[in-house]
């Protein structure tokens, strides 16, 4: 609970002390004052005493009106310069404390707050313990001993929750964010629901505040939702990393991977049918490939190894065949190597050209700068006229008789830039072409080497003892065996990685299932009850106050934003759109009151304080305003502070307060601050 018991505003001027003091009732208070009387100053001082001036869009004494910073005007037209000023605010939760905060003081910072452990204003207790605290500096919200806001949150037993901020960090909800839900300030507070929440980078701050005030369970769910998102993005990263890893392993054996999603997915058939390899002009999947190799190996082992003598004819023709192959390949290799050299030379020429163009470009840009500097000191040359006879001259030192027109500097620069672009594009194309050719060349080169080795081997065999077993055949067997071994090992390695993928896939499934649970409308039954009550209260009040813009039937409370919406046949929109200005004001009245009522009846966190500053905005009808006041009168468990000018008219005041009996009236005279001997407790 937060009860504002009393406030005293003091200004020490060169002509003496001016002050103003108010004692508030624990129920309904109406503070009446004309528009220029200092009504706003009074509310601002209350906010200032609580360290809540950020609701007014600023920090410290900046937000206070000049009447507390520069000079006091009393009576009208006479100014008294302020030497020192401060605010004393007495508040109560279970116990009473009094807060003293400097506005202007040469020796004290406005960030400093003194907290008196008792009632300084009403009971005038003496010898109270004073604790100094500070505001707004680092740690003010978390340091319970010296940070005022942390202290205030504890004093009011607020139990503020941890929420997520835009940078992804988890911190306490700042106490300043909840105040706009029950304090509606004149300048900005009537523009929208919870309008004056200061910016701290809290994610979805309005949602968090309403969830807090109503004490909704869904708040915990929001937190879990965010944690789930973090888990999700971690998994996506792991997946990507694993995929890159997998590709790297597969590449070692020239294996292509087909169909493995780049983002996590539920994979049902995760085996190495994803893997294929190009073998003998065919694309086979890995198991088929291994099968083929094994079959061939079987064939080889079952074949008796023929002797060299038996194979002489075969070997000879093989050698001839391979030799032809080799010749063709060598020719191709030479041609392509020459081609590459040519292209490289071309690139070199263009690279040199690029350097020249860039140099020229710099010179031209320098020239441009020189010309504009020349124009600033009003030389004639930049204006292209002869300094002596003022005739027009061409912008060049070529003979004036020359029939060529030089480009203007800007044109020239553009021309050079276009050249630069062209050369760069050309070079890029060249690079790519050269790379492709080099790849091809490497291909030829390795095949040439392989063939050479084979031919050599075969030739060796020709001069071997005819009775010796054919080495090439033996080698073929050995090579094949080692290939089979290599691929078997590779498959094992791939299998291990696949296992990791299966694992990730399962975790992904789990995350997706959890996500479904957290669909937007996952409220506890208690939450649903509270939101229903909010909606019912809102509709009842808004109708009571005279809302006409939309049929009541279509008005709902949004399950996403917890704010009033209008539900059409197929669309929903904020009640702001399509409500008249005065109806929007009625909506804010109703919503603020409904928040309180639901919290009161269903165990919310509302501090049971309502503050309205000039609620009769937008030419509000007296009748509607009267209904509003009658409603506020019924809130026996809350303190209400209502500041209004009643159009500076006694008649309006009487009309609007007709039937309202249970309130304490405070009147602000012409000026808020009066000389000490005159100021009395209002």
């Amino acid at each position, binding site marked *: 609970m937060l009860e504002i018991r009393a406030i005293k505003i003091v200004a020490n001027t060169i002509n003496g002390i001016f002050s103003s003091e108010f004692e508030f009732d624990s129920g309904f208070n109406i503070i009446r004052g004309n528009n220029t009387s200092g009504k706003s100053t009074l509310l601002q001082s209350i906010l200032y005493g609580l360290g809540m001036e950020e609701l007014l869009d600023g920090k410290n004494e900046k937000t206070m009106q000049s009447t507390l910073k520069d000079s006091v005007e009393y009576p009208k037209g006479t100014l008294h310069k302020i030497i020192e000023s401060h605010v004393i605010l007495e508040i109560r939760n279970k116990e009473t404390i009094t807060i003293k905060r400097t506005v202007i003081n040469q020796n004290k910072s406005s960030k400093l707050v003194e907290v008196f452990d008792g009632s300084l204003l009403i009971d005038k207790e003496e010898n109270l313990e004073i604790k100094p605290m500070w505001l707004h500096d680092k740690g003010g919200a978390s340091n319970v001993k010296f940070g005022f806001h942390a202290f205030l949150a504890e004093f009011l037993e607020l139990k503020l929750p941890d929420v997520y901020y835009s940078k992804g960090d988890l911190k306490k909800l700042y106490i300043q964010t909840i105040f706009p839900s029950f304090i509606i300030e004149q300048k900005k507070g009537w523009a929208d629901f919870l309008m004056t929440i200061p910016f701290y980078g809290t994610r979805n701050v309005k949602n968090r505040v309403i969830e807090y005030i109503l004490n909704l369970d869904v708040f915990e769910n929001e937190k879990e939702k965010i944690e789930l998102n973090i888990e999700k993005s971690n998994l996506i990263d792991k997946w990507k990393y694993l995929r890159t890893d997998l590709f790297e392993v597969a590449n070692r054996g020239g294996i292509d991977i087909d169909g493995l999603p780049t983002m996590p997915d539920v994979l049902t058939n995760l085996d190495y049918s994803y893997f294929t390899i190009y073998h003998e002009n065919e694309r086979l999947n890995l198991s088929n490939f291994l099968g083929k190799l094994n079959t061939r190996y079987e064939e080889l082992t079952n074949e008796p190894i023929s002797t060299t003598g038996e194979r002489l004819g075969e070997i000879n023709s093989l050698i001839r065949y391979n030799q032809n192959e080799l010749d063709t390949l060598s020719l191709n290799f030479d041609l392509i190597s020459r081609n590459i050299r040519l292209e490289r030379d071309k690139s070199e020429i263009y690279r040199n050209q690029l350097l020249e163009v860039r140099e*020229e470009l710099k*010179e*031209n840009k*320098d*020239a441009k*700068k*020189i*010309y504009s*500097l*020349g124009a*600033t*000191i009003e*030389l*004639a*040359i*930049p204006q292209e006229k*002869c*300094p*002596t006879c003022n005739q027009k001259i061409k*912008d*060049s*030192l*070529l*003979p004036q008789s020359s*029939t*060529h*027109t*030089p*480009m*203007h*500097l800007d*044109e*020239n620069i553009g*021309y*050079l830039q276009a050249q630069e672009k062209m050369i760069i594009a050309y070079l890029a194309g060249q690079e790519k072409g050269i790379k492709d050719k080099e790849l091809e060349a490497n291909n030829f080169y390795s095949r040439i080497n392989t063939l050479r080795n084979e031919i050599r081997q075969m030739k060796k065999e020709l001069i071997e003892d005819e009775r010796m077993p054919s080495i090439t055949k033996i080698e073929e067997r050995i090579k094949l065996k080692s290939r089979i071994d290599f691929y078997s090992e590779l498959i094992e390695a791939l299998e291990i990685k696949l296992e990791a993928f299966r694992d990730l896939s399962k975790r992904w499934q789990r995350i997706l299932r959890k996500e479904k649970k957290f669909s937007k409308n996952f409220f506890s039954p208690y939450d649903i009850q509270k939101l229903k009550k909010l909606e019912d209260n809102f509709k009842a009040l808004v109708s009571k106050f005279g809302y006409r813009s939309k049929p009541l039937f279509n008005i709902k409370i949004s399950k996403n934003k917890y704010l009033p919406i209008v539900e059409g046949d197929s669309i929903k929109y904020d009640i702001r759109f399509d409500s008249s200005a005065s109806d929007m004001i009625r909506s804010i009245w109703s919503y603020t009151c409904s928040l309180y009522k639901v919290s009161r009846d269903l165990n919310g966190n509302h501090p049971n304080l309502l503050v309205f500053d000039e609620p009769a905005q937008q030419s509000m009808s007296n009748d509607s305003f009267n209904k509003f006041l009658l409603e506020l009168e019924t809130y026996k468990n809350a303190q209400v502070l209502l500041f209004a000018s009643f159009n500076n008219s006694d008649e309006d005041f009487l009309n609007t307060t007709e039937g309202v009996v249970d309130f304490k009236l405070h009147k602000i005279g012409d000026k808020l601050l009066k000389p000490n001997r005159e100021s009395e407790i209002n």
Partner: protein
Amino acid sequence: MDNSTRITFTKRPIPIPAEYRPLYKIAQLLQVLYLSSRGKKASLLKLHLFSWAFKSKKNMQKLESYIKSPAAIDLRLWGLEPSLNRALVYAISDNLCRYEKGNYVLTNLGEEFIELIYSDNDILKEQRVFLNTIGKSVTEKLVNNISKSWKS
């Protein structure tokens, strides 16, 4: 049959090197007066020499080496440029320099102009560095010596 087809040629403007821009050339020359001449004045021949040097990095290096060891470098291959004379005429009429007893002298306005240019560290950077390196060591005497070698 009279099938006269008309062919038209449109004369397009041509790009020119920056040093053919009057004010650019003038700025080049003014900096020679400012940085490399005693008394902020120089002869026409000296200005031609520097104009040749500014044409390329190679030329600037050659001049620098010549100053260090005149015997080692053959500096005969440099020439005069008619465009430079034109630039000087403009410079004089715009009061950036004046002609006095055979020399071109930097005026106050010219000095102001060159300082304005120098306040941007990027403009004429290489030339500025070059001039700062050789200081005032290219004297009129040196220039005369170089031009003497033409006669041989």
